[in-house]
């Protein structure tokens, strides 16, 4: 208990940091993931190729390596002077986007082909078909895997702590450094992560309830 009370401001900063990087990377991952999923099911070969390459590359690169590239290599070539927080969010967002893409793509696969064909025969364009007919129906199937992906993202954000981003991992190292017993430190860090991940799974439960699609 002491460790938390003695260093609550640092703990709060770490917690806020974890929430912030999780939120921003989630948005990046969601937007990119949906766009790339659209690419992968599109009738345009170059786009399909791009989507496949994107997923293959990002999904198979260890996250730490991706952070290294974003932190040490990207600023050298483009945008020098970008904040570590932004670089970290991008690394985490890009990485997770590949998982989101695959989840969305499998969701699209669950929508009966007849739906898309019917939409096309009504004269809807590809993007209209996706936006108005397929994605709304795919969403419900996608929610449970997405919730797991975002919970994983929260925990993955700990890696950003080793790349100049203030978050819970940094608080843990700071406290260990000062000689507090290790068990309570980890206990509080775990509790903080639980708060975030429970919030995420709660949010998804609400979404699932509200998005019931009649089938």
């Amino acid at each position, binding site marked *: 208990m002491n460790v938390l009370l003695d260093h609550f401001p640092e703990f709060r900063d770490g917690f806020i940091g974890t929430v912030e990087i999780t939120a921003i990377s989630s948005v990046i991952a969601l937007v990119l993931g949906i766009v790339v999923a659209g690419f992968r099911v599109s009738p345009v070969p170059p786009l399909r190729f791009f989507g496949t390459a994107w997923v293959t590359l990002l999904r198979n690169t260890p996250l730490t390596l991706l952070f290294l590239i974003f932190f040490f290599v990207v600023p050298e070539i483009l945008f020098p002077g970008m904040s570590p927080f932004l670089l970290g969010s991008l690394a985490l967002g890009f990485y997770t986007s590949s998982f989101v893409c695959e989840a969305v793509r499998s969701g699209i696969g669950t929508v009966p082909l007849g739906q898309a064909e019917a939409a096309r025969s009504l004269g809807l364009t590809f993007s209209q078909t996706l936006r108005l007919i397929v994605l709304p129906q795919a969403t419900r199937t996608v929610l449970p895997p997405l919730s797991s992906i975002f919970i994983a993202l929260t925990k993955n954000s700990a890696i950003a702590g080793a790349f*100049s981003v203030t978050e819970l991992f940094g608080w843990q190292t*700071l406290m260990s450094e000062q000689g507090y017993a290790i068990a309570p430190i980890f206990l509080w860090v775990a509790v903080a992560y639980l708060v975030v991940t429970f919030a995420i799974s709660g949010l998804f439960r609400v979404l699932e309830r509200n998005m019931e699609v009649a089938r």
Partner: protein
Amino acid sequence: MKLRKTAAVAVAVLALTATACGGKEGSAGDKPATKPGDAAAPQLPTYTVASGVDLDSPTFKKAKERGKLIIGSKADQPYLGFEDQATKKRSGFDVEIAKMIAAELGFSEDKIEWKTVDSKLRETAISTGQVDYYVGTYTINDKRKEQVGFAGPYYLAGADLLVRKDETGITGPESVKGKKVCSITGSTPLQEIKKPEYGAQTIELGKYSDCVQQLLTKQVDAVTTDDAILKGYAAANSGKLKVTGKPFTKEPYGIGMNKDDKALRGKVSDILDKFEKDGTYKKIYEATLGLSGSAYTEPPALERY
């Protein structure tokens, strides 16, 4: 055409950074150029193994029965506590201090089992008896005294700054305003240098060697942590880096051991005392951290409790 040029430049830069990361040139994980014990370097002392040592200490008795002494140490601090990944040989100032104590307790070098212990697990490893004692940049403080016993201090370190050899702008903590300073995530000196009176911009990474790499490639202006660790890196990258020599915190290093083992604590303090007086301690320093170009300082007074 212009686009193609940019792409070519980008590729070239990429290739450069890639080689810089994997290159030999002064990467902090490299083997030091003059290893302690080279003919060019000041020679390390040899330790005579004491015989017939008897001590009323549970830790010591257990080690005697085992026929082996288990010493906790660091493995990634050149010239301080370093393990050569190829030969598995350990070297450095802390390692020598540990060997010196072991010899005096009656254990020769081949009777020592080294255990690398991560910083955050030190208290746990000591209090659960996984190591008999621990030597590795271990600052004595009251918080830790609740969990472990300390013999020493055997070295007075302090947070300092490591800069490039040609650096003239940074001479000490008072001149880092707005400069980029790197250290390990959550380290104490970093919290210190962030404070408004110093006002440094901080970069926090996972390993000191990453920070040193960043310093060599001019992405940061200084690295901060205990001067002992910095001296080791300065020695390992001889001629490229220097320590400013203006410590801004006090970090007395002690030898961590079981909290209730008073007999061992007293004995280790006696050993430190003896070797500090007879010059062995100084020899160890000269052959390890002294290679960084930082002058020898007298060890702090021992605290017995």
